[in-house]
């Protein structure tokens, strides 16, 4: 089974999916990610799916699950780089990924997390 590497950039964890996901590797990724968030105290998780061409309902649900897990650990999840064909497929499957933030690319994803963080600090100061 192939494992998806988790990269750390500052206090953001980046998961770039570049393999055909099997159910087993998805489950492993969820566990690894949860461990890593706790270990590093990350405040954001970015899942980069630029290379993903095919999705099914299982993978669609994976995003939502990872987002829920991360939120429990006080980290925001952003899914970036979704291809048009993938987005259309997910809509046709009736999966709207509620609770998951999305961004067009990795750069915008990082900017979004920084923006969210800034907003939270500003709110706390008030």
């Amino acid at each position, binding site marked *: 089974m192939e494992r998806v590497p988790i990269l750390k950039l500052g206090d953001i964890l980046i998961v770039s999916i570049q393999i055909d996901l099997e159910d087993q590797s998805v489950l492993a990724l969820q566990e690894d990610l949860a461990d890593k968030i706790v270990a590093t105290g990350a405040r954001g998780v970015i899942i980069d799916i630029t290379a993903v061409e095919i999705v099914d309902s299982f993978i669609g649900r994976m995003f939502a699950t990872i987002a829920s897990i991360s939120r429990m650990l006080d980290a925001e999840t*952003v*899914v*970036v780089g*979704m*291809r*048009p*064909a*993938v*987005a*259309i497929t*997910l*809509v*046709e499957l009736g999966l*709207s*990924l509620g609770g998951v*933030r*999305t*961004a*067009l*690319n990795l750069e*915008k*994803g990082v900017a979004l997390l920084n*923006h969210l963080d*800034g907003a939270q600090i500003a709110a706390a100061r008030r």
Partner: protein
Amino acid sequence: MGAILTVQSDAGRRRIEELLQQHEEHVLKRWLEIAATTPGGHTDRGDMTARLTEIYQALRQSFLGSGDTSDLRGLLAELSRSRARQGFAPTETANVVFGLKQAVFELIEGDGDTEGLKGFIWFSRTIDDLGLFTFESYATAREKIILDQAEQLLELSTPVVKLWEGIVAVPLIGTLDSARTQVVMEKLLQTLVETGSEHAVIDITGVPAVDTQVAQHLLKTVVAARLMGAECVISGIRPQIAHTIVTLGIEFGDIVTKASLADALAYTLRQSGVQVTKGRGTRVTVRTEEGD
């Protein structure tokens, strides 16, 4: 065709074949004259002569040997197609083909040939088949033209325009159906990726009617754009359309809708942190906020 033939009419058939061979020049000449008198038959005489001569030869070939009509049908289809493009009615093309019956009949009548008359029934049936075949080819040709045009229209009618850095718009014009929405959706999403735009405006000013299906298509597009990390605004909702949408009980949820494209542009500019202020005189100053 072959199954209908009886032994009795076989003699007639042979007679017709003989006549077609012996009086080839005469029949062909007469056929051309008749074809020329049918409406539209007189145009491009030289082309017509060449085509009909070819068809005549192919017809005779098909009577001989195995009765293979593929050559003949090919020629007739070609005739029908070219005339369809020139805008002739299918009846006119069929009439040109039926003209051969008259030419042959005149020949038989002149001879007072009973054997030939018997064979003429069979000949007439064959020509009728061929005439109907041109009619069919005409319909097929037209169908293809219509399909091609529909495809071209689909390509023409879905432009995605850039309004501002990071803002694109799709002005939708005409009725939305599943096929068109699919094209619009794909093109919009593709443009979002290519230009890295985070805001899209879908303008439905040119959509004559919105029903549940159209609304469903719009919602799907917005949700798909959201999945990719872009926000959509729907603009150009006319009063009666707003009324219809509410009457039908369609929920747009948290999707932003604006009355006009101008409102939508102003909204998206604000969302992307661009301020437009009115300067002194006619100049407009634009300032981008850093970091929002």
